[in-house]
């Protein structure tokens, strides 16, 4: 074991055969040994993981990195740093940048910036040119670069015929379209969930039907075309039920939910603080319960952050004028742990945040077209690439907006404490986060 570079001692590995008390030896970029006790050779870095779970590095299907165009809010570097601190070893950059990621040139720039970042950066391409919903973006050219997900996120493709055409076209490319489900006519002008709080607060609301009607439409388009659709950030009980039924029929649909939709409700808007403005909006207690139920029964495949940084001056405006979005990367795993750990085993929680999103993003170990990315999402076994998240379920995460790695401060969890904390993150064998501190 002379080529061992890192030994993680004292933790329990979430492996393919279950949870196993084991030390982990890493040589270069690869896991070289798993054993109850590994004596580190001299020169190897030793990471303490006593009481910790060692799982595959997390994979975020839904990160807004804001570069190019909004570098005051986030950059690839700062977003990936936040990701690493949150236990992520891969993130998928959403294409609603300025300009949008709708050409190979822009995609190439973002991928290049990601190469030296603290987490691997994949990109999602736009479905339509400029995300304007009028004409198909060059999906083939982007697929050549390894882009596996396409979405106009921030907006849904409103025109059903155009979405159908995109799905037909995508089939030949082997890529997946991801939909931000929001009927813009129904949602028009809405600043929060339409319900008892919007009515009382006098804010225009977005009805649940604005999301559900597009989920329903796209399920019919999956039926029509046979092409897969991934549903982004499901937020309503009705959406979860529609996806549940589509899956029971064997249709090729997958879905994700954001941590804030597992925990927060529209009642938080009553102080008119734009930090609680997000799209889709925070909804009711029943919707939160339905989203959690969807995660428990497998209707929802992945937890995805929808990390959406906004500069302080952009959020320091009247509620209806503020852009929607919340930070999420550094709080996702503690929130998932807090909400789910009584009801799902650690291996299932990690699957929701690692192997399952990796498969949807085309970053998993069996995916032949990872194009420049290492195998993400585990399994944690000898011979695998060492992309790891070391999580201490007994520690606490205290959220201080001023001490987040993001360039922005718009976390809805300021001052809150969650049980569990990310301790170390290993990217391709390199400890990029040690004891909750970024190493470069």
């Amino acid at each position, binding site marked *: 074991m002379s080529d061992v570079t890192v030994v993680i001692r004292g933790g329990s590995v979430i492996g393919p055969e279950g949870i196993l008390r084991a030390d982990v030896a890493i040589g270069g970029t690869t896991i070289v040994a798993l054993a109850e006790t590994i004596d580190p050779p001299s020169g190897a870095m030793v990471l303490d993981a006593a009481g910790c779970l060692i799982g595959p590095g997390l994979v975020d299907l839904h990160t807004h990195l804001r570069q190019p165009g909004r570098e005051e809010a986030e950059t690839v570097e700062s977003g990936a740093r936040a990701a690493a601190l949150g236990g992520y070893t891969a993130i998928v950059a959403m294409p609603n940048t300025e300009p949008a990621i709708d050409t190979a040139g822009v995609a190439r720039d973002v991928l290049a910036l990601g190469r030296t970042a603290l987490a691997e950066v994949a990109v999602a391409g736009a479905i339509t040119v400029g995300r304007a919903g009028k004409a198909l973006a060059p999906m083939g050219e982007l697929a050549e670069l390894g882009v596996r997900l396409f979405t106009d996120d921030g907006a849904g493709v409103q025109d059903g015929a155009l979405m159908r055409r995109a799905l037909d076209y995508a089939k030949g490319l082997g890529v997946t379209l991801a939909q931000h489900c929001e009927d813009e006519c129904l949602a028009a002008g809405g600043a929060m969930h339409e319900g*008892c709080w919007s009515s*009382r*607060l*006098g804010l225009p*609301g977005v009805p649940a039907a604005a999301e559900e009607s597009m989920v329903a439409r796209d399920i019919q388009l999956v039926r029509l075309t046979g092409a897969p659709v991934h549903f982004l950030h499901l937020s309503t009980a009705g959406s979860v039920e529609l996806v549940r039924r589509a899956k029971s029929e064997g249709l090729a649909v997958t879905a994700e939910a954001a941590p804030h939709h597992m925990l927060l409700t529209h009642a938080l808007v009553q102080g*008119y603080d734009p930090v609680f403005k997000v799209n889709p909006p925070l909804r009711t207690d029943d919707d939160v319960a339905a989203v959690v139920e969807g995660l428990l029964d497998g209707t929802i495949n992945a937890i995805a952050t929808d990390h959406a940084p906004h500069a302080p001056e952009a959020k320091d*405006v*009247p*509620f*209806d004028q503020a852009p929607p979005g919340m930070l999420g990367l550094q709080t996702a795993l503690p929130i998932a742990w807090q909400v789910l750990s009584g009801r799902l085993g650690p291996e299932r929680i990690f699957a929701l945040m690692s192997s399952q999103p990796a498969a949807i993003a085309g970053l998993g170990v069996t995916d032949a077209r990872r194009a420049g990315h290492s195998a993400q999402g585990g399994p944690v076994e000898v011979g695998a690439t060492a992309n790891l998240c070391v999580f201490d379920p007994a520690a606490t995460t205290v959220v201080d907006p001023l001490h987040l790695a993001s360039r922005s401060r718009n976390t809805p969890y300021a001052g809150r404490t969650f049980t569990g904390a990310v301790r170390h993150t290993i990217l391709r064998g390199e400890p990029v986060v040690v004891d909750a501190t970024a190493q470069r």
Partner: protein
Amino acid sequence: MTGPQHLLSVADLGKDGIAEVLRVAEAFAEVERRSVPKVPTLRGKVVATLFFEESTRTRLSFETAAKRLSADVLSLAVANSSVKKGESLRDTVETVEAMGIDALIIRHASAGAPHQVARWATRARVINAGDGGHEHPTQALLDCFTVRQVLAERKGAAPEELGIECFEGLRVLIVGDIRHSRVARSEVLAYSSLGAQVTLAAPGSLLPPSLEGWPVTVAEDFDAALADTDVVSLLRLQSERGSGSFVPSLREYTAGWGLTARRVALLSDDAIVTHPGPMMRGVEIASDVADLPRSVVVQQVTNGVAVRMAILFLLLGGEWPGHE
């Protein structure tokens, strides 16, 4: 015990707070009847009006109220201010406050803007003079004040003698564009916390999407509800908030929900008609109805000054009642 620091919502006052506002306003109404209607109560205090949305009566009413209390009044004309150069609401507020302002009276097209201003303000008291489709607390207070005044006149009593018991069981019918109306939201809170029974009447598209938690009933038959009410509060159809497309036409709205001469005949003899203004004669209120004695629109405007004097006095200088 001290009262609220700001007046953002009628809910900040509660029943006792509203009673105190009405009591103090009665005293200031007396001041207004003097030959020199001015008292030195707030001498040395500076009050600023920041109206980010058009207004005639509310702004003039607040400024008149402040001047009658001898406060100095600054008026930010948004159209000629740094706001037009792109200055943010927060910077505008912090700039104005830095000049030593004691009270910021704010009107804004965005619901909740005064709440945010109150968080940003370090020492100034913030008064909501209407925020989007949320609330317009002083309007609801002056409506209550006016209704009590009318009830007192009929009894030949002083309003103060009626206390707030006169609102117990009072039937109030709020009619019109409730969905977009800040006056409606404040009136529902004010009347219901005083013990009145509030009923809403509007086409379905102009009701709020959810009335969960509202202490109101919805009238199924507008004409029947009119026959069964003590106060009719008419609201303006707010085309500037997009409510034009919420009904097929103004003609159809008037036919279904306008207070026409025919509908006035359904009212009991004692029923009072209020309107926060500006009125759209011929739409929500027939022109000859607006000028009937039972319509107290002009009295409402007069009373607005006394009620706003009371609010300024209580927030800037006076005492709030303790809770028993």
